[in-house]
């Protein structure tokens, strides 16, 4: 860990201004950033502590949605009565991640901006284009059990590790950011990016931009939803594959469908054409199989993660079944619904 100065931001404008300067990082819950600093992966010379900024509330939106402050903890979000009742998919996804202790410290903004768990990214003795652009990608032809099967590039095959973000993608949330250039709203699908030839960039935030809130649309999935996460032990492990599904059912048919995959790409993976296959249709194994195929079109294994393609296909079919039947996956009872 290098030496750094510490500054507690008084307001967003000050934070944004400081954040735009080189080698500065925002510190929220610190559960990811501090770990990365200990591993010498992040070497900021200045930390701007944003944890005391006032974006720490969950508020109603006029059109019926909900605004989640960036500094509300993951635990407070998951257990908020409004979130539990109106966005059970989000609550479930958050509770599928990390551990109670971590969720108590982790913030919503930090969750969006957490970095990949790629082994090589964490180990400064190895090559990694995300950590050190141009150094190469250790994971390609290396150990890549937890790596991507979709949307990879020749420069990087990392995944975004968040569970929460997978639900946010399915819910079509919006990310509110404020920066030196003012405030803007980013549709969730555009927030994270694919690695391309610039894997050092995880998302589309501009220098100094800070996430202030996540807006959830009024339209949510309260009956027919699920968050199904498959991993190497039954709790406290990142997803090998996860699936967030939200369906609106009308008279036995699917009126609207939103599906996002986690653990398979550099961002929560959505394929609108696959969702469209479901609309107006009655649930059936055959249909779910076609949707899975459409979602996984173009998937390629990287060696030690080849199994993920088949696993994802199975997980998608199962999650669709759970959602259609209104039997969402419990995050405490590990028996798969």
């Amino acid at each position, binding site marked *: *860990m*290098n*030496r750094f100065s510490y500054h507690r931001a008084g307001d967003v404008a000050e934070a944004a201004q400081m954040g735009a300067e080189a080698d500065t990082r925002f510190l929220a819950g610190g559960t990811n950033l501090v770990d990365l600093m200990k*591993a*010498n992966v992040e070497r900021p010379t200045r930390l701007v502590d944003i944890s005391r900024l006032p974006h720490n509330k969950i508020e109603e939106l006029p059109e019926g949605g909900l605004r989640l402050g960036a500094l509300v903890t993951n635990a407070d979000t998951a257990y908020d009565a409004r979130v539990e009742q109106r966005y059970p998919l989000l609550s479930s996804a958050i509770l599928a991640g990390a551990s109670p202790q971590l969720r108590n410290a982790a913030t919503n903004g930090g969750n969006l901006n957490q970095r990949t*768990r790629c*082994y*090589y990214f*964490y*180990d400064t*003795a*190895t090559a990694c284009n995300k950590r050190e652009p141009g150094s190469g990608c*250790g994971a390609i*032809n*290396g*150990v890549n*059990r*937890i790596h991507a099967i979709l949307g990879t590039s020749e420069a990087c095959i990392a995944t975004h590790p968040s569970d929460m973000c997978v639900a946010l993608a399915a819910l079509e949330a919006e990310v509110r950011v404020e920066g030196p250039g003012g405030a803007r709203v980013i549709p969730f699908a555009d927030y994270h990016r694919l690695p391309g030839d610039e894997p050092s960039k995880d998302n589309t935030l501009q220098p100094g931009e800070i996430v202030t809130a996540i807006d959830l649309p009024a339209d949510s999935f309260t009956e027919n939803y699920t968050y199904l996460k*498959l991993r*190497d*032990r*039954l*709790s*406290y*492990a*990142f997803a*090998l594959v996860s699936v967030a599904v939200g369906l609106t059912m009308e008279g036995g048919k699917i009126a609207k469908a939103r599906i996002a995959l986690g653990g398979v790409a550099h961002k929560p993976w959505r394929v609108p054409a696959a969702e469209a296959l479901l609309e107006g249709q009655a649930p059936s194994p055959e249909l779910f199989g076609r949707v899975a195929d459409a979602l996984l079109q173009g998937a390629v294994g990287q060696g*030690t993660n080849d*199994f993920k393609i*088949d*696993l994802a296909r*199975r*997980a998608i*079919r*199962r999650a669709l079944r759970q959602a259609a039947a209104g039997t969402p996956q419990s995050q405490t009872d*590990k*028996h*798969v619904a």
Partner: protein
Amino acid sequence: MNTHVNPPARIGEPLSRVDGRLKVTGHARYAAEHPVADLLYGWVVSSSIAKGRITAIHEDAARAVAGVVEIITHKNRPDLAKADSAYQEQVAPPGKPFRALYDDEVQYSLQPVALVVAQDLETARYAASLIKVDYEAAKHNTDFRIAQGERFMPRRKRAAYQPPKNRGDVDTAFAEAAHQIAGTYHLATHVHNPMEMHATTVVWEGDERITVYDKTQGSQNTQTYLANVFGFKKENIRVLNPFVGGAFGSGLRPQYQAYLATMAAKMLERSVRLVMTRPQMFSHVHRPEALQAVSLATDSQGHLTGMRTEATTATSRFENYMETVVNWGLMAYACPNAEADYTIAPVDSYTPGDMRAPGAATGMTLFEIAMDEMAYEANVDPLEFRLINYSEKDAMHDTPYTSKALKEAYAEGAAKFGWDSRSMAPRSMRDGSELVGWGVATGMWDAMFQKTSARARLSANGDLLLETAASDIGTGTYTILAQIASDTLGIPVEQISVKIGDSDLPMSPIEGGSWTAASAGAAVEATCQSLGKKLFEAAQKVKNSPLADAKIDDVRFDYGRLLSKTDPDKSVSYGEAMAAAGEVSIEAEETVSSGISGMISQMRKSRNTHSAVFAEVKVDEELGVVRVTRVVCAVAAGRIINPKTARSQILGGVVMGIGMGLHEETFVDHRLGRIMNHDLAEYHVPANADIHDIEVIFVDEPDPEVTPMGVKGVGEIGIVGTAAAVANAIFHATGKRLRDLPITIDKILE
């Protein structure tokens, strides 16, 4: 007699840990927690290559950091012993022990290549990040499967290694078999990750004297090692390990942090603390990767007629680490024709080392998966199969056991588990959408005994001080020693202080092999008995002593008094006895060893613990999700001193066994020769959600012969066989025979 005192504890009672309060209140200090004035902090720089030479170390930037006191590398290290023998402590396998910062050679990835010593931890860590090391890499191999080409059997064997003994005519047995199976089984490398990372605080006392707080399983072993390597006089080194935050074998050999902290202290004549990071915990001892081929043959009734086991485990290039891997099945089962072969294969890693039930956890577990395959091939219930091939004696050495209540363990375990209602066919049991599987396996471990000394001092107020250099690695040594003394001398536990974990105390071996309860326990018992004898003699000197005509066997020791067994009204308090003898305290010291206790020679009888493990899994077949919903572990381990701490040992072993079955493995990038999942986020051990009901049964197994107290030890048996019971249950559930541990989601779906 003071009526307020608590009753003495009895052997066999579930006494809670006497050190529990210290631990939960944070008063138990671990190696890196002892306050020391003017302490310096070290930070290790680890190699990025797996093999080669260091060509340059760029340390200017690090030296320029204020607060850096010294940077130690092979270039400026102090003089060290030259001969390998100086580095070979009690448990070193044959070879050339690793010497950190000795020369420019790199022998494995994450090897220490520099040590930064600074005023504080943060400075040391920061400065370490500024050091750049240039290497000339050499070709390495970390791939165990490729290393198979270099398998060999070293001429010099490790001290504890037991060679297998063949019997009968195996070829003919297979040629004539009614049924046979053959399979190759694999176990991944497991890395030691006790909660407490390896840590050492060396206190420079001046005058070439040091006090060392070390995370070790043997203070006297570390003491000898440091004396030999650094040229200190042995009496000038005191090593303390009063509390150890788990070890499982990782603290048997002194690890490099003890060596490096001592090196820095000696060089700088200052006190130094050094703690390994979690990634560095992946750079020392580990359970070696293993491949084991097993072939079994039976007659038409399912009686074993032939067995052949061949195993290879990994070792390093510089030491020949061996385990007893292939013998267990040959010992366990009656089978007229059996042969086994064992080899090791070198990879460019640190030397593997003992990890909970070394050898048996690997060999017996993999063998027990083969046993299940054989049972199915012969169409015999897997439990019945083990019973019809049961051997009352040690079938390999052809010697009787001092005791073997495994049959009882099978019976009690099966009854508790409900094995009776199992249906034989794979895929025949379901619970809703899940397939249900029930598996069984046998576990075995050695019942060992080591020469150990103890000292006891009784004060006139009835307080007893017990001392032995033994360690408590979280197993409950403090508690059972207090309990044995309490029972022997009739003193309540509250009045007993146990002092262990200090090289100045009476001799005790390293805490390993599950021998501590039997050995330190017997030493304490013998010492207390000897103290009791002195008390008795003193009691007879009391004026008009009511015990004047008694013999020692006529009295018992209870509530701080010597009482006549026939007439409890005739009694003398310990205080009165001491006063009569004119003593303010009475002391005794005894040493127990197999010789002194008159035990029959180790050669004529076999000594083992046994277990029967039953596991239930529920498998979601579509997704490959396995849940271990129930485990019953029935253990035959002789006399149980404390069923509560003993149960905890078995629970921990079973949890570790579930991890062996489903989770634990290292992912090595063989191009780099480096373990990539070197943290606890990605190196998986079971989490709470992976563990459901675990039932522990101790079957009655009186055994006055095995050790002086009839104790066999329970630290290791819990892990042995558990992973096989899980793997066998998965077969029963799914019909899929998986021979490669851990059984991860992808293997279920394959």
